[in-house]
């Protein structure tokens, strides 16, 4: 037992030490009631009452899974000093990380009488570590996506996901160098407070892991939300350096606007479109080249945007920019490959057509000569034989068959014949009209109701009118033949991407995918008396004109042939 005076001094020193200690300090009894606590503890746990007399767990609100991760329980059972780290949610709803050191105090019989609990707030360090691992995860996620639309959506989802960067709304703007503008590309976020509350509670309930949330948001992605549509309307010229987005691009630095509504330098139009008093813009920079801006706000929660968050968002934006660049390069590569494939296919086709043409011409001539002889003699027999004679009947059959073969040969020779084209400026509408009037009796006979929808604005183009008319005739004839019981035929002309588009739509039988694959192959036919050259010739003609033909068909519903001719 210390003399009274010494004990008093020691108390002072102890008080001094405890006061200097940057953390919570509490003495508990064996039943875990708090007997004494320093003021810092109440600050650290953000409680507005005196913790003395309360149970430890009520005050600290630790999220310990079981007794083994609780330093107090461990110290009590082991009799040794115990250290643990734990996450807790304060009464005010803030997340804190705390390190607890609990030391048992014993009497002379070595029985535990009290427990000393030190607690240090390690939230800042934990958040840093959490942020770093989060950034690594986000970077992995974004680098793994090469489809540009999917990637942009993923990026914005990361910005808005509570378990990631946690902003309420995010918009993405991209630079278009050719047009010298920055324009709104995509936006993610709820459209109303109600929706926001619903979404967030749903998210918290359903998706614990970021990956799951991203997967779900991908499935639910909608491009008709008001936020997205407003964002799509936003575009600013890169020379207008007063614009916030342009400033962000030019300085390549984040802009945190705390009070947009009363800031005099702000463009009113931009503020109206953004519709938030506080927002942050961070640039997307690749190899020192700005390619866009991410703009985020806490419109619903009104939670202030801290420098810390801005920093995190900027770091994420760097990863995102790299991913966008990759995806863009990938997309361009894909386009080039497709173009190359297209050209190659066209080359192969025209080569194949030429070979087939030469072969067909050779075979046709070789066959035609003996056919003349066979048919000629058969006719001679036919004339010499008597009515009712078996020979007369047989000769008739030979003549008929030879006629059929000669017709096919004539068709093939048409196909293989090299054509010299005579190109003049022509009006497609006139040409179509002309073809229709030519076929008018045919339409009537076949009970076809004809509808014309011609765009009068389409310009004259340089084509071989005879050849193009041949194409119209072939396609229209096919359309009519696909409607043996009659039907309606729609002829449309329109402008599309530097091309005149001519649609020929029937309400006929349609085609299977298998037939569609082969319709342009020379000599492929589904008709009993067809030669299979009509569409092949048509395609060759359109090819020669630098255009192309597209086909859409579904069984029962009919077929649409679309001819594209360059202007």
């Amino acid at each position, binding site marked *: 037992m210390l003399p009274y005076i010494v004990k008093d001094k020691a108390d002072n020193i102890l008080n001094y030490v405890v006061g200097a200690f940057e953390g919570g300090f509490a003495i508990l009894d064996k039943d875990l009631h708090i007997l004494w606590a320093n003021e810092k503890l109440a600050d650290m746990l953000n409680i507005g009452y005196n913790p003395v007399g309360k149970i430890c767990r009520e005050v600290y609100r630790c999220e310990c899974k079981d007794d083994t991760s609780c330093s107090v329980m461990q110290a009590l059972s082991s009799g040794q000093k115990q250290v643990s780290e734990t996450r807790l949610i304060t009464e005010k709803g803030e997340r804190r990380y705390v390190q607890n050191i609990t030391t048992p105090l014993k009497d002379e019989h070595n029985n535990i009488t009290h427990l000393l609990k030190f607690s240090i707030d390690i939230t800042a360090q934990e958040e840093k570590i959490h942020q770093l691992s989060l950034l690594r995860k986000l970077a992995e996620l974004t680098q793994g996506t090469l489809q540009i639309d999917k990637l942009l959506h993923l990026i914005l989802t990361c910005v808005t996901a509570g378990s990631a960067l946690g902003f309420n709304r995010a918009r993405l703007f991209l630079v278009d160098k050719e047009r010298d503008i920055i324009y709104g590309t995509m936006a993610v976020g709820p459209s109303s407070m109600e929706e926001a509350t619903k979404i967030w509670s749903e998210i918290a309930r359903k998706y614990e892991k970021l990956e799951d949330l991203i997967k779900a948001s991908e499935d639910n992605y909608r491009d008709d939300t008001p936020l997205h549509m407003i964002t799509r309307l936003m575009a600013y010229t890169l020379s207008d350096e007063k614009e916030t987005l342009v400033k962000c691009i030019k300085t390549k630095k984040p802009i945190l606007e705390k009070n947009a509504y009363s800031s005099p330098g702000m463009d009113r139009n931009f503020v109206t479109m953004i519709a938030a008093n506080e927002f942050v813009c961070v640039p997307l920079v690749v190899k020192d080249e700005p390619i866009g801006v991410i703009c985020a706000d806490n419109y619903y929660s009104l939670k202030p945007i801290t420098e810390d968050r801005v920093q995190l968002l900027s770091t994420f934006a760097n990863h995102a920019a790299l991913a966008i660049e990759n995806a863009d390069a990938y997309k361009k590569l894909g386009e080039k490959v497709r173009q190359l494939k297209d050209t190659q296919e066209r080359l192969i086709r025209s080569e194949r057509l030429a070979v087939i043409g030469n072969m067909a011409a050779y075979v046709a001539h070789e066959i*035609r*000569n003996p056919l003349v*002889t066979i048919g*000629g*003699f058969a*006719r001679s027999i036919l004339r010499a034989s008597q009515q009712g004679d078996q020979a007369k009947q047989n000769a008739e059959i030979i*003549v008929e068959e030879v006629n059929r073969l000669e017709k096919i040969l004539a068709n093939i020779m048409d196909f293989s*014949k090299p054509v010299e084209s005579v190109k003049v400026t022509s009006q497609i509408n006139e040409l179509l009209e002309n073809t229709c009037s030519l076929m008018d009796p045919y339409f009537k006979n076949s009970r076809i109701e004809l509808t014309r929808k011609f765009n009068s604005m389409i310009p004259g183009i340089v084509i071989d009118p005879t050849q193009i008319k041949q194409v119209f005739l072939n396609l229209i004839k096919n359309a009519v033949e696909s409607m043996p019981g009659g039907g309606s035929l729609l002829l449309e002309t329109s402008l599309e991407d530097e091309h005149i588009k001519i649609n020929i739509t029937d309400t006929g039988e349609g085609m299977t995918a298998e037939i569609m694959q082969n319709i342009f192959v020379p000599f492929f036919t589904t008709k009993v008396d067809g030669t299979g050259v009509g569409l092949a010739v048509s395609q060759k003609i359109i090819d020669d004109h630098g255009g192309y033909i597209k086909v859409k068909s579904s069984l029962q519903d009919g077929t649409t042939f679309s001819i594209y001719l360059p202007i």
Partner: protein
Amino acid sequence: MKTVLLVEDDKNQLLLYKQELSQEGYNIITAQDGQEAMKRVNEQFPDLIVMDINMPKMSGIESMSKILEKHKKIPIIINTAYSSWKDNFMSWSADAYIIKSSDLTELKNKIKELIG
């Protein structure tokens, strides 16, 4: 009786034409290539020539131009399986261009039109 010279390398076809045109009341003489055709023209002075184009030794086009050098007035009908020669100016000096068919009506009509 008018004499028609048939120039054709295909024996069977030649036989067909000979039969058919004889029935129409013409005197038929034949040749199986361009050279033989020139010889026949010089010896027998036919009233009309029906000429194939693709033949061995001398083509119908070549022999036609040689014949026309000497006998400017003799009518010539080109009778061929090839439609492509029709657009070639070498064949334009012929009086008619017929694409071979087992139906000889067109050929017969043309001959009648030219020499009766």
